[in-house]
């Protein structure tokens, strides 16, 4: 099967068996790769009764279609599971090098099933897999784990995806880290891996990927590489990385501050991408096959925490463990937060938001030092926030409550659910819908819960959407976003399934050229968008199968209160207008939230329609 290695590795951890299974060609053709394809497999394997931390819940990890090829910026890979954090569909995407190496090691994906009795790690080299003892790694942070495995293998180019102590301790939003901080960040995929006692997956390989027309692929990839190298967005992202958005967030009011109750903290500019470049950057580095090199290498020579060479934090973490708690950070401390969260291995977005909620409750007097174990959670208290990182990572003390997330915190303290700034159990990323109304729709409708990666509507509103997709761009506070959000979600699903970085703006003609040359398909933009919609509707159907209904497509009340100061200027998205318009475009039932039978059948999914009782 051109473009694929043609097989998955099935690891049954209960039986300690490893089996190769042929890749389902129809699934691959319909869903292409990464989270889209993983979701299709997952649909068959879980239901409402599946215990997310039980042996019957699989963890499925898959590379994007073009991982491992010479295409530009084709580094993205993903995973899917029944989330222990939200209780329904969970997926996550990552970059760096693991996805490409998994493909080079001979596989289109790995499915972890069952539970091991003792800690193990999965080692895959050139199509040969084995389960190795990981008892000496258990308890180690994600950095040490990777170092140790590389040392054991004698090969520094081995790629490792691992969990840290957080997932070992079953922190519900524990994540999976590869290459020192690049993670399947959200929804608790790491926690599932920890429940199976799998510490890591190590991959290495040089197995050639079969291609339909290698010569044509090389030419298309060469042209695409030039486009990315010369692209304007590439240049900006190279210059300041995602941290470059911090200054934009301040201006637009996009960065949540003091748990969604204040204008974006102006002092956050001290840790912005521009400041990183001007004062701390010594180098940059890249993900697999990427000419953009948006990842910053910093040297921190002043402050409490010194680093000779460290990767700079991304935007989300800078705000989540920063302005969210009103923390006025220097770069040293901002980097420390990032390093600690990555070392423990947990989602910086959900954890930062949960910590922010704790500060908010303390501010209201709902909780006191009696509840926090003596911590004074006053806005701006950096030391208290640092202590919370450690407690969350160990799932101990007051941190154990935060490790359950904002929804569980609201329930525990008898607070209105509208105070937990999440949808479907997953906290908002650090883009406020009051700054960009499209994000309200994005968060309300994403299958896994609030998810900025399923559509960066704020980017499109700001003018950095893909020019070939002809997105309808209107003012950031307009309430006519349904069409743009729907189209951009479909396109994002395509990009994720192919494995292309969101910052690489490659002409669609070259993308289809690369896909067709690799696989022998005859695809075009319309077919790709249909595949994107298929993936999106499949993920939605899976969420519905696992208990989500239309009632869950709501934004929390606290995040809908107007903030007159700063960049938001008192605006609030009109969800009463936008959501029904969106539902109509997606053909979702207004009560059940399920896609219609007609829509699912038009996308080639009659069995999905039957399975969820779509009408």
């Amino acid at each position, binding site marked *: 099967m051109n473009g694929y290695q043609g097989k998955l590795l099935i690891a049954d951890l209960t039986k300690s068996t490893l089996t190769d299974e042929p890749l389902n060609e129809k699934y691959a053709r319909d869903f292409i790769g990464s989270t889209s394809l993983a979701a299709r497999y997952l649909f068959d394997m879980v239901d409402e009764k599946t215990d997310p931390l039980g042996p019957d819940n699989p963890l499925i990890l898959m590379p994007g279609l073009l991982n491992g090829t010479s295409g530009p910026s084709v580094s993205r890979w993903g995973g899917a599971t029944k989330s222990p954090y939200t209780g329904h569909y969970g997926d996550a995407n990552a970059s760096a090098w693991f996805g490409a190496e998994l493909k080079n090691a001979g596989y289109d994906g790995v499915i972890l099933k069952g539970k091991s009795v003792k800690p193990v790690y999965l080692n895959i080299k050139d199509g040969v897999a084995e389960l190795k003892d990981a008892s000496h790694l258990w308890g180690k942070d994600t950095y040490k784990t990777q170092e140790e495995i590389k040392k054991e293998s004698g090969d520094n180019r081995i790629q490792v995806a691992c969990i840290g102590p957080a997932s070992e301790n079953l922190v519900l939003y524990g994540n999976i880290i590869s290459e020192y901080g690049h993670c399947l960040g959200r929804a608790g995929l790491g926690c599932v891996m920890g429940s199976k006692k799998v510490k890591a997956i190590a991959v290495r390989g040089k197995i050639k990927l079969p291609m339909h027309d290698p010569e044509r692929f090389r030419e298309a990839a060469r042209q695409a590489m030039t486009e990315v190298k010369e692209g304007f967005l590439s240049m900006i992202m190279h210059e300041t990385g995602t941290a470059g958005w911090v200054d934009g967030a301040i*201006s637009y009011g996009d960065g949540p501050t003091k748990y969604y109750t204040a204008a974006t903290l102006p002092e956050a500019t001290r840790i912005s991408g*521009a400041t990183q470049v001007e004062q701390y950057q010594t180098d940059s580095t890249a993900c697999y096959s990427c000419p953009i090199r948006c990842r910053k290498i910093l040297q921190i020579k002043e402050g409490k925490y010194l680093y000779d060479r460290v990767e700079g934090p991304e935007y989300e973490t800078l705000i989540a463990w920063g302005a969210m708690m009103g923390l006025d950070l220097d770069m040293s401390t901002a980097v420390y937060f990032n390093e600690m969260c990555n070392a423990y291995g947990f989602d910086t977005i959900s954890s930062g938001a949960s910590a922010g909620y704790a500060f908010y409750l303390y501010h209201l007097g709902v909780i006191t030092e009696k509840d926090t174990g003596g911590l004074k959670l006053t806005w701006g208290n950096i030391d208290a926030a640092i202590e919370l990182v450690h407690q969350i990572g160990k799932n101990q003390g007051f941190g154990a409550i935060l490790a359950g997330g904002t929804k569980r915190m609201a329930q525990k303290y008898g607070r209105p659910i509208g105070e937990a700034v999440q949808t479907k159990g997953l906290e908002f990323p650090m883009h406020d819908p009051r700054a960009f109304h499209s994000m309200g729709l994005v968060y309300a409708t994403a299958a896994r819960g609030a998810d900025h990666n399923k559509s960066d509507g704020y980017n499109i509103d700001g003018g950095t959407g893909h020019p070939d997709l002809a997105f309808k761009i209107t003012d950031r506070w307009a309430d006519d976003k349904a069409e743009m959000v729907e189209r951009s979600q479909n396109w994002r699903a395509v990009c994720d399934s192919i494995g292309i970085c969101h910052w690489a703006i490659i002409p669609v003609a070259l993308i289809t050229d690369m896909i067709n040359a690799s696989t022998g398909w005859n695809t075009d933009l319309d077919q790709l968008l249909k595949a994107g919609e298929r993936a999106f509707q499949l993920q939605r159907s899976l969420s519905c199968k696992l208990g989500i209904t239309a009632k869950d497509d709501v934004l929390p009340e606290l995040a809908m209160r107007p903030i007159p100061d700063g960049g938001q200027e008192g605006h609030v998205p009109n969800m009463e207008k936008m959501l029904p318009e969106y539902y109509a475009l997606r053909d979702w039932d207004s009560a059940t939230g399920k896609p219609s039978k007609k829509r699912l059948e038009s996308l080639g999914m009659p069995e999905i329609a039957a399975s969820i009782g779509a009408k």
Partner: protein
Amino acid sequence: MAKIHINFIGPLRVILGTQTVTVNVKSIEEARDYVEVHYGPVYEKKLKSMGVNKRQSIWDNSIFLLNGRNISQLDEPVLKDGDKLDLMLLVAGG
């Protein structure tokens, strides 16, 4: 004529090597001309050094806030002394 402060935010500050410039202009259009004339060459040179060969205008690739307000929401703004015009490049977060 108004004496306004043009602030270059984030990546634009890094590329131009300047954070703020104070200018006397009559209108937003004049502010635009000033930026393109005085900073356009630096911008173009920097972009070329980074491999971006297509010509780019600072103004056309920026977003603007006048005194913190979205400029597209203002009807023909009349500038006055002390006004702040923030220019930011269209940039993506993560």
